[in-house]
């Protein structure tokens, strides 16, 4: 059982009422691999309220990916119940789950998972296509979503023409386009350098702070988890620790202390020049 402090009052949205956004009730998940059975989750119970920013942590094999898949309605629990916005989704049909993923959930992946040779705008449009929205409304919403992540000027670019950070921002825009209740991010900074990672965290923090978007993020990086409000640690298919982040990092402030890409490049060049001069001096007899 997570302790009662898991959802402290200051993190509750005033509109949320008594129903938590996510409520997992003793979830078990067993994978049948023929000869052996793997117990990935052994009785998970937790709640996430509207407006929270949760980091899910734990070593590989701890069950954090499994719980994310269940939260993302990509997988169904073997036992237990999952209430999303008060509705039991643990025994819904595949079609109903697809609809929930489309309307209520936004996904961000480590590998970005953008469709190649497809423009950023069309990538962002993808969920609206399956929501049955008309073409004009689709591109309007996609554009709006791209603007939110600051990539309106790259709408026509293909993923191959974008940097990793920009690709992840497109992926975030895609996750937001259907105005989901929850953003599920699976190691969103796993493939990014440290400055870009902080930039992504800045976007997520802004979405959480200013727009009240609930975010659940899997990460194995301690420093990244410090940008969130709450961390849940998994081990051996159980919740080991569920705690509030005491000294939350603010990405915008951290960014000011980090050199920009250009500065970094300049610094590197300077460094190279210096070592060359030094070696040059050394080379002189």
């Amino acid at each position, binding site marked *: 059982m997570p302790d009662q402090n898991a959802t402290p009052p200051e993190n509750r949205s005033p509109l949320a009422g008594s129903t938590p956004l996510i409520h997992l009730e003793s979830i078990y998940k067993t994978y049948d691999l023929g000869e052996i059975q793997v117990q990935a989750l052994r009785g998970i119970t937790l709640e996430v309220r509207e407006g929270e920013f949760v980091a899910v942590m734990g070593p590989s094999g701890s069950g954090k990916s499994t719980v994310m*898949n269940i939260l*993302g309605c*990509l*997988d169904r629990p073997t036992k237990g119940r999952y209430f999303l916005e008060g509705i039991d989704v643990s025994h819904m049909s*595949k*079609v109903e789950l*697809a*609809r929930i*993923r*489309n*309307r209520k959930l936004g*996904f961000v*992946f480590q590998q970005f*998972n*953008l*469709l190649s*040779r497809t423009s950023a705008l069309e990538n962002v449009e*993808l*969920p609206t*296509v*399956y*929501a*049955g929205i008309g073409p004009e409304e689709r591109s309007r919403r996609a554009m709006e979503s791209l603007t939110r992540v600051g990539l309106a000027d790259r709408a026509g670019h293909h993923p191959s023409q974008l940097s990793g950070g920009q690709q992840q921002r497109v992926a975030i825009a*895609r996750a937001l386009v*259907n105005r989901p209740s929850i953003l599920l991010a699976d190691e969103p900074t796993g493939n990014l350098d440290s400055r870009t990672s902080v930039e992504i965290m800045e976007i997520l923090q802004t979405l959480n702070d200013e727009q009240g978007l609930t975010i659940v993020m899997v990460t194995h990086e301690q420093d990244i988890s410090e940008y969130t409000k709450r961390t849940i640690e998994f081990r051996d298919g159980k919740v080991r620790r569920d705690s509030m982040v005491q000294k939350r990092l603010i990405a915008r402030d951290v960014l000011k202390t980090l050199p920009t890409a250009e500065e970094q490049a300049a610094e590197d060049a300077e460094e190279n020049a210096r070592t060359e001069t030094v070696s040059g001096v050394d080379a002189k007899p």
Partner: protein
Amino acid sequence: MNFMNTFRLALRALSRNKMRSALTMLGIIIGVGAVIAVVSIGQGAQYLVQQGIQAMGTNAVYIAAGSGRPGGVRMGYGGVKTLTVDDMNATVQGIPLIQDAAPAVNARDQVVYENQNWNTSITGTSPVYFKIRNWSIQEGSVFSDQEVDLAANVCVIGTTVAKILFVGQNPVGKTIRIGNLPFRVDGVLESKGQNVMGQDQDDAIFAPYTTVQRKIVGITWLQYIMASAISQQASVAAVGPITSLLRERHRIRSGEDNDFFVRTQSDIAELANQTQSVMTMLLGGIASVSLLVGGIGIMNIMLVSVTERTREIGVRMAVGATESDVQRQFLVEAVTLSMMGGAIGILVGLISSAIISNLLSWPTIISGKAILAAAIFSGAVGIFFGYYPARKAAKLDPMEALRYE
């Protein structure tokens, strides 16, 4: 996700691998093209046959001596001696549906003019024969009925015979030798070209039947009678009365086989038609095998495509695509591929049949039915061979698909 979206998506996916899509379509293009070309050539052939049969006169009724069975030995067609000129006259007089009739006796002999000679068929008949067969005279005239009565040594020759024996000279009025007998050439028939069976109809000589019977072959009976009815329907209707009349005249008891047979032009036309359609269907069938192969090609490429795009499928499912959305996407892709192949194939078929028509001066008839069938069939190939890959895509587990490398 509506159909237009799905279709646009399919076009986009196919255009990403243009070379691959083109090669995949090639199977269908060749299949459909071959079917269209073969069918149009076959129908052209059918048209030629019909033309030939029309030229023979659509009202014609052909009464031939059949196989008798004297003493249990079957004789084969034309082997009996019972069909006579009297039978012919009785038919014309006794059956109002029959307008005219001409007797026919066939022979084959060496013909000689000056230093040229040739072996050809000699048909003994009467002047009405040319009227029934709708043949006209190019030069000179046909021998007269009196000459038939007198068994005169006169004849009419076909253009092939004229060319070979006379080499540029005018044959009319000249005397040729048939076997050992001299014959005066009264006229040259207009060229008729090949008949339905591919025989040169101009390689023939026509003489009074009396002359051929008595002086060349030495018989008193006929091999066949060429009659004409008052209309095409009448020709079919006359078969029954002719049969009973001749059975009576030949004293054939009920239960015994006829010693003659009656064929109308419609029968012959039908037979020729059937032969042609069987040929066309056979060739079309062979051509459609390549359609099948093309379909397998589509299935193959779609399976590759599903594997390649596993991650894409995972992403689509994660953002809300249902199984049926994914299935439709891949099915529409396969059908688009095959339908486009079909459309190009129809074009290729039309162009190649036009080329064949030009090169071989053989009429080709483009059939709307064949085009429609090709279009429907290529669509069906897409659905049939696209179904399995699409099903496979739809059944992917979104979680595993997202993890797929």
